[in-house]
């Protein structure tokens, strides 16, 4: 098992490097938001989602559309997306844009507008109950999406419908376009208690520790839908990007790129 986590660490390192490489070919990219999601996405694809006949049987929805680079690089490694697809990211002949589009390989829904993923996730999970197909659904939301009323509407419905097959991860990096959430919206907190009061089982973990994420999933105690609050750092891995709102949508210049790569490969 230990070996599996070492492999995961390597993958996450290379994912960040790949994103930085791509950032040198396009003007702007949501790199920092992707960096906070890397370990969560790795945990979902490599440890939690069941496969059947070499294909994913369970479903993963990237509700946090602007974090899609984390998903794209994972899908590339899984050979679901081609190298060419990522090389052509945000170019006129490419299929991949700044937000995931339904219909592209490995992409289960179009996201990018915040607050849509939870509704889709509830609809899919409930359908899986109706169809009795034993599939599980994993959805990754940004913490900003918990400022959208639609997310809470659907959380209430997920619990009403007893969707025990639904697991949600919050990329809780606490940082949004306008600043640090605990200062801009202090009453966003307490978060875990709010979620529990909506009928969910909820745990809080270090979102950059894959084994903690998996452990939180495996130690689920109830038949309620499960929410794992993954505490993360926006821009994780690159010192000058970490928790700096300016890096929400920006590509590093050549100098910055060199430093960033050095820092990432060192860790």
């Amino acid at each position, binding site marked *: 098992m230990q070996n599996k986590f070492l492999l995961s660490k390597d993958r996450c390192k290379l994912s960040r490097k790949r994103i930085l490489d791509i950032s040198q070919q396009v003007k702007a990219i949501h790199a920092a938001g992707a960096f906070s999601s890397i370990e969560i996405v790795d945990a979902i694809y490599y440890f939690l989602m069941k496969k059947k006949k070499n294909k994913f049987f369970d479903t993963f929805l990237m509700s946090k559309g602007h974090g899609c680079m984390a998903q794209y690089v994972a899908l590339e490694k899984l050979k679901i997306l081609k190298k060419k697809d990522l090389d052509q990211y945000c170019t006129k002949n490419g299929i991949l844009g700044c937000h995931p589009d339904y219909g592209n390989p490995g992409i289960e829904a179009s996201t990018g507008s915040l607050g849509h993923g939870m509704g889709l996730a509830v609809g899919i999970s409930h359908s899986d109950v109706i169809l009795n197909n034993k599939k599980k659904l994993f959805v990754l939301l940004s913490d900003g999406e918990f400022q959208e009323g639609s997310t809470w509407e659907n959380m209430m*419905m997920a619990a009403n419908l007893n969707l025990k097959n639904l697991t949600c991860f919050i990329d809780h990096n606490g940082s949004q376009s306008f600043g640090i959430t605990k200062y801009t919206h202090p009453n966003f907190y307490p978060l875990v208690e709010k979620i529990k009061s909506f009928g969910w089982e909820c745990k809080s973990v270090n979102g950059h520790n894959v084994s903690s994420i998996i452990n939180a999933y495996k130690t689920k105690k109830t038949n309620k839908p499960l929410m794992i609050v993954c505490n993360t750092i926006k821009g994780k891995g690159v010192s000058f990007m970490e928790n700096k709102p300016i890096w929400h949508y920006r590509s590093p210049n050549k100098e910055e790129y060199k430093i960033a790569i050095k820092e990432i490969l060192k860790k």
Partner: protein
Amino acid sequence: MRNKFAEVIYRESTKNSKICVVVADISPAGSMNLFRSKYPKRFINTGVAEQSMIGIAAGMALRGLKPFCYTIATFSLYRPFEMIRVDLCYQNLPVTVVGMGTGTVYSTLGGTHLTQEDISIARSVPNMNIIAPCDPVELEDALKYCCRQSKGPIYLRIGKAGEPTFVNKRSEKWKFGKIRKIVSGKDICILTFGPIMEKAFKLREKLKKDGNSVEINSCHTLKPFDYVTLKKKFNKYKKIITIEDHSEIGGLASIVKEAAYNNTYKGKIFSFSLKDKFIHCYGDQNDLLNKHGVNVNKFYRKVL
């Protein structure tokens, strides 16, 4: 129409296990209760949460189910509009969004409950289809189509209760995307949709007394619109009348006038639509329609 909706959905669902109903806190009348008790998992009430209604339906369609979202039109289209645009239209999912009590039907409830610009809004979103049946018989055909199609999202615009039936033995057959002749006539052509067809029949009677023979058509599919048949009407008639329980912006009048320009139509078009105004009138539907100038005597004077 709402009873007919419940009745047809129930009947279709016994044959098609993919049909699901997602409502937002609307009291399930008649057969809807039957659907709910027979298929409890396929019936979801999201409560007063319309964004949730659309999002959940989109998720169900992603899994291959055939959901129908149902509530009062203002809340089924306007409130969750961005969910309709992104979840349903952008992903092109076969979900039917039923808007009940459309146009001026809820006159006494005031402006918060009126849908006078719904077609205009729905028409402008790519992939969206719009059907607005004129009576319960036409609704049945439209609903059967909605249950069987898997092309994309549909906004199904219906009335409320007690609508008369206009479709008769001599009416053309209903077909998605086709203008449907309800009664024939050779001098004047009326194009309309929805239960306001009642005004068309009254106008027809009045014009008949003057020796005019008037055809009435149900333009039940507002999108995609049947421009081929419309062109034939332009070629055949010198006078065309549009009647709609909808704003003068972006509805049937706009469609017909744009097409008239494209076809260099030389005849005259008389359009009767709702004004681009919020009118505070809490009388019955006809009182409100009168304030909008939608009045048969007025039509008659203008057309003559």
